[in-house]
């Protein structure tokens, strides 16, 4: 079964905001997420395919509600919990 990220050809997403944004990040936290991703991956804590799978495994409603880098953050936390680096819920303490 296709996962929620497989949107090619799906109808109903509306008009495209074609604004030519050249800023790579729209908030500091987005840059930190990219920096964390590259640092943790370089250390071998997870690889790119595991990361993609973690994004694509998000519950559909959560995936659609999340911004691009929120998905990255959700996937990083999920992988770190799977690998035992973080205790489930440790981030919420």
């Amino acid at each position, binding site marked *: 079964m296709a996962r929620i*990220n497989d949107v090619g*050809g799906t109808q109903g997403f509306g008009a*495209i905001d074609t604004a030519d944004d050249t800023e790579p990040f729209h*908030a500091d936290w987005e840059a930190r997420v990219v920096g*964390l991703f590259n640092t943790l991956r370089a250390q071998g804590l997870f690889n790119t395919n595991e990361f993609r799978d973690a994004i694509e495994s998000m519950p559909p409603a959560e995936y659609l509600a999340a911004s691009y880098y929120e998905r990255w953050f959700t996937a990083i936390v999920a992988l770190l919990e799977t690998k035992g680096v973080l205790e489930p819920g440790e981030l919420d303490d």
Partner: protein
Amino acid sequence: MTGEHLDATIARRVRRLETLLEEKGLITGERVDEAIDAFLASSSPANGARVVARAWTDEAYRSRLLADGTAAVRELGYMEGSYQRLRVVENTADTHNVIVCTLCSCYPLRLLGPSPSWYKSEAYRSRVVREPRSVLREFGLELPGTVDITVWDSSAESRYMVLPRRPEGTEGLTEEELAALVTRNALIGTATV
């Protein structure tokens, strides 16, 4: 919750994760800073524009670029050591190309720079494969009905870049001047040059 509150919440959670990972000795703030700088420094649409200008001015290079994009951009110092394959697709008088990643956001980052938000949006990803002509019109690009549109869907291993048509009246320009004409959207295919 307003957008601003949402942003403050996620910003706090990202900071909290960074602190936890520092306490565990897995990262340092400096390493994260360096990773951000490296990401931004190596990727720019000026790189893709340079490849295009070379292809416009050197017929042998153009042939090599279309035959094996990965090898041809490595000649100019890009994508060395990358496991990804690059295929360069050429616009002609009767064919226009446009790239997408329907599954997420795969993109030749090094050659095109960080991708615009719309490239990663569900609206673009879902629609450009179904109704490319309407989507291009939303970008202000009206193509004659006689021009075929080919849409290239990227994957983890395969990336695409469009080779736009050289504009008329540019015969006297140098390679550098030609490169300056090429926009990021032309390399994606949502603009002609």
